[in-house]
């Protein structure tokens, strides 16, 4: 779920207009950004669920540090603290919440592979409601997040520009259009695995 996170970021932008959209988009996938080097170092791994072909939603992700409940909270706090120093305390709080929202949205789709403590210390039950078992439904939720997010962003962007400035209105329209197009494109790439 990458496109869904982007849609959520665009929706939040419509309420928290002082926070740059790129920062919201980066924050909403930050757990996955941190996951990449750990994956390359074989500290966190991905396996195909038994009886599946490894396509969209068919993986079991052992991201035991970045996607553990406490690990995600810690990463969100660090991200938010840095943002608070750079921008403002409120922006830092918003971005920390957005970083952690990744864990909540992933909780909806992941098969039960998300631990509570980093490294799955204590072998506590792993969490995940498993919407990925129904790939079309999961993709529909992501598409809905992109559509709603792009619409809310477009409405907020239109409200920020003067009606007497057609150049800025065009830029606002273009920005919202790209949120929609890139969001759907990322979802299609993710669903079809065209790029691997």
């Amino acid at each position, binding site marked *: 779920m*990458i496109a869904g996170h982007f849609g959520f970021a665009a929706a939040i932008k419509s309420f928290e207009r*002082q926070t740059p*959209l790129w920062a919201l988009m980066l924050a909403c*996938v930050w757990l996955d950004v941190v996951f990449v080097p750990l994956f390359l170092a074989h500290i966190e791994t991905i396996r195909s669920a038994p009886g599946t072909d490894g396509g969209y939603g068919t993986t079991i992700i052992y991201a035991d540090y970045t996607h553990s409940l406490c690990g995600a909270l810690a990463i969100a706090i660090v991200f938010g603290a840095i943002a608070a120093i750079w921008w403002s305390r409120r922006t830092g709080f918003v971005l920390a919440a957005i970083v952690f929202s990744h864990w909540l949205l992933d909780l909806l789709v992941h098969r039960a592979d998300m631990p509570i403590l980093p490294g799955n210390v204590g072998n506590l039950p792993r969490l995940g409601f498993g919407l990925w078992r129904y790939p079309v439904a999961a993709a529909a939720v992501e598409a809905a997040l992109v559509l709603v997010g792009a619409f809310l962003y477009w409405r907020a962007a239109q409200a920020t520009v003067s009606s007497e400035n057609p150049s800025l209105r065009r830029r606002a329209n273009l*920005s919202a259009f790209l949120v929609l197009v890139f969001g759907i494109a*990322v979802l299609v790439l993710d669903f079809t695995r065209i790029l691997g």
Partner: protein
Amino acid sequence: MAFVLAVFLSVVVIGVIDAGLPWPNPKSAKVGP
């Protein structure tokens, strides 16, 4: 990795265009829209 690159490029392109809009200053503590 190509997928990761595509995601990164989408953040950059959207971020650059969005940054040209007259949003409130992120360093201000103003609350709400």
